[in-house]
């Protein structure tokens, strides 16, 4: 850590990990409710648990992004953060607002929460991922503005690097697109249309810029490859992301009442969205193979490579699977969607946050470059447990999805929804088992912060191993 | 040292004239309202040929080895096959 103010990132990362744990607990509750319908009913109904699961996901990823920015921006700009105090203040504002919102979900019926928070004045609630009360949304905007101001001032008055500029554009885009969360037209078609401007243009647009820049930063640091080479890749990846991703929004406009030509626009452009993800994979492996040094923090390199691979699988492969309109006609809103949503979110955004945490946390906790061997090995175990179990979650959901689509929508004698759900319950059980393994991985992950923290730092090794 | 690039310049001028002429041919075919599968496929073939001239001479792939030497040709072949097949099977479907 070269600059004192980078340390604020520690707060953000710690909160991110805590909320991640919460998200997984609610995931397991949901998974059980899928097969044991009245589990925890009426205390925590499925819709509430689902809302908590997905909102915690978004919030912890956002904490992770902000932490990443507070860590890497000063280092790239070669100056202290514009205002560390503001960063700490905003951390607490965001955390308290987040906690109150989650408590609101859990303690008050949703419609009551809407009334309590004055949703009538400016109705924004009730849409997936954007369920937060309007007042929370306003809070998010304030935090985002203060954050952008802080980061922006640091970047603009310091050394300007491509990594920093791309990150800034991504974060600014994230904030600007969130403003569509306040736009809630009565017309249901328009409502959906703009809802995707937040959800799709986030994960398949501006978030990819954030992902690309964090990945580039970690690769520059751990491989020692020339910044110029890495920057060139970043440019091309971003250009491809925007070209394919913006019009690719059309893959959500097939059946919501929008004109038919979206079936063409959406299919053609989104079919190419895997390209930037694929380029990211090639990029990461290429850089690691051309490395000039063997960084002591091996597990951070493992996370970086894992992110590149899993993002490509989850977003690129599983996204492509159902993105062409003739396919999506059958798979829309099925377990195929959930399979893709899980692997893509984990592979791209959960993993990139875990990557930067893995790289930065040791230094913020007083290490020179890396954790002790023991702690790194434990973290590697957690990497494999979480990643492999996520692959299985995805496979089981894909199996469930294929059966669901066939039995309910494709066969000559289509069965009713609930009948099909009964028939594919086995897959849901297996998903739940894989979810428990995931939780075990997460426990090891958290343990890796404590185990071996008294041991000496990992030392230089003579022989270079090619990947990690 | 400039004779080589002069020559190259002259070749490119020639290619340019050929491209302009081939474009006129395509236009005349449209103008005369010529129809039928052979005509259609010839127009397509002309377009692919023009594409290859652009790739070889204008983009300079003539002087490249390996994958990039063939990149444009591969693309043109792909487009040619896809479009050709579609027009082949739709001829006589009026």
């Amino acid at each position: 850590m070269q600059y004192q103010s980078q340390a604020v990132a520690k707060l953000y990362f710690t909160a991110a990990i805590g909320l991640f744990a919460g998200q997984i607990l609610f995931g397991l509750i949901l998974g059980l409710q899928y097969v044991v319908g009245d589990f925890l009913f009426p205390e925590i109904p499925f819709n509430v648990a689902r809302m908590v699961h997905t909102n915690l996901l978004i919030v912890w990823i956002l904490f992770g992004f902000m932490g990443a920015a507070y860590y890497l921006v000063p280092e790239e700009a070669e100056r202290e953060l514009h205002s560390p105090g503001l960063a700490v203040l905003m951390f607490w504002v965001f955390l308290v607002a987040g906690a109150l919102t989650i408590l609101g979900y859990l303690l008050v019926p949703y419609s009551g929460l809407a009334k309590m928070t004055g949703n009538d004045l400016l109705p924004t609630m009730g849409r997936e991922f954007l369920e937060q009360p309007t007042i929370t949304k306003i809070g998010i905007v304030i935090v985002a503005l203060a954050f952008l101001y802080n980061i922006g001032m640091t970047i603009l008055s310091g050394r300007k690097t491509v990594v920093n500029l791309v990150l800034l554009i991504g974060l600014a885009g994230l904030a600007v697109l969130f403003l569509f969360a306040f736009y809630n037209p009565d017309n249901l078609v328009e409502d959906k249309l703009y809802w995707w401007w937040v959800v799709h243009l986030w994960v398949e647009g501006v978030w990819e810029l954030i992902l690309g820049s964090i990945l580039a930063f970690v690769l520059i640091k751990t491989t020692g490859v020339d910044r110029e080479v890495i920057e060139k890749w970043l440019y091309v990846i971003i250009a491809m992301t925007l070209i394919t991703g913006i019009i690719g929004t059309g893959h959500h406009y097939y059946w919501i009442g929008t004109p038919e030509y979206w079936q063409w626009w959406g299919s053609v452009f989104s079919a190419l969205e895997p390209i930037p993800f694929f380029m990211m994979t090639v990029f990461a492996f290429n850089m690691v193979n051309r490395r000039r040094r063997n960084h002591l923090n091996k597990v951070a390199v493992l996370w970086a490579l894992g992110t590149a691979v899993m993002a490509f699988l989850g977003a690129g492969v599983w996204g492509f699977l159902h993105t062409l309109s003739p396919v999506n006609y059958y798979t829309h809103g099925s377990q195929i969607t959930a399979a893709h949503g899980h692997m893509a979110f984990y592979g791209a955004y959960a993993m990139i946050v875990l990557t930067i945490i893995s790289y930065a946390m040791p230094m913020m906790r007083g290490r020179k470059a890396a954790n002790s061997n023991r702690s790194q090995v434990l973290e590697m175990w957690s990497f494999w447990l979480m990643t492999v179990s996520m692959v299985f979650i995805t496979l089981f959901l894909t199996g469930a999805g294929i059966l669901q689509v066939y039995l309910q929508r494709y066969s000559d004698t289509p069965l009713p929804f609930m009948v099909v759900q009964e028939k594919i319950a086995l897959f849901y059980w297996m998903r739940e088992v894989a979810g428990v393994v995931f939780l075990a991985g997460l426990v090891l992950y958290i343990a890796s912060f404590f185990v071996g923290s008294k041991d000496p730092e990992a030392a230089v090794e003579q022989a270079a191993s090619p990947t990690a | 040292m400039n004779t080589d690039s002069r020559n190259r310049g002259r070749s490119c001028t020639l290619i340019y004239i050929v491209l302009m002429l081939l474009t006129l041919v395509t236009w005349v075919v449209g103008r005369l309202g010529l129809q039928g599968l052979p005509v259609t496929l010839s127009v397509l073939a002309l377009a692919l040929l023009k594409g290859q001239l652009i790739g070889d001479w204008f983009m300079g792939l003539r002087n490249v080895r390996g994958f990039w030497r063939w990149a444009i040709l591969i693309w043109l072949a792909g487009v040619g096959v896809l479009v050709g097949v579609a027009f082949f099977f739709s001829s006589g479907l009026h």
Partner: protein
Amino acid sequence: MTRGGSLPETSRYPPGDLAVWIFILAELAVFAIFFAAYAFTRMQHVALFDQYQATLDRNAALFNTLALVTASYFVVRAVTAIREGRTASARNRLWAAVGMGGLFLLVKGMEYAHHLGEGIRLSTNAFYMFYLSLTFFHFMHVILGILVLMVLAMRTAAGHYSAQSHTDIESGASYWHMVDLVWLILFPLVYVMH
């Protein structure tokens, strides 16, 4: 990168920045899919496609093809000039190419005005959906290509490039040729073949 005026040796990589070439391939892939989609959709609606293709202005398309090819030629000549270190002439040729691109936009813009004036929209029918989508997507590329050429012309004038160092110009030139190449397929496909 710099291949002065020596013997026409071969190189492993095309002129310009490799990243730009990867980008070009990706762009070509988009257009290829669009072309195939056009052709296969036409299979289902041959009569409709032929009927409405006849409403397009083939003369305008001819003019535009000639304009783009000419622009490409100027770009080729600009690269030749800069390879010989003749900056002023490189700059003039780049501006000439920009002019030709501008003509393309003007004529295409008039075609659009005409169609839109007749009430034709993306939803009118399958043919017009493709005609408008394909040509407009290409139109955006012409705009981008022109912007690139303008920046290159200004930077050439400012003395950024020399016989030894002009990778940017080669990259921009390759991009522009790609825009031209796509149109050379698009023109017969959408305006002529039936």
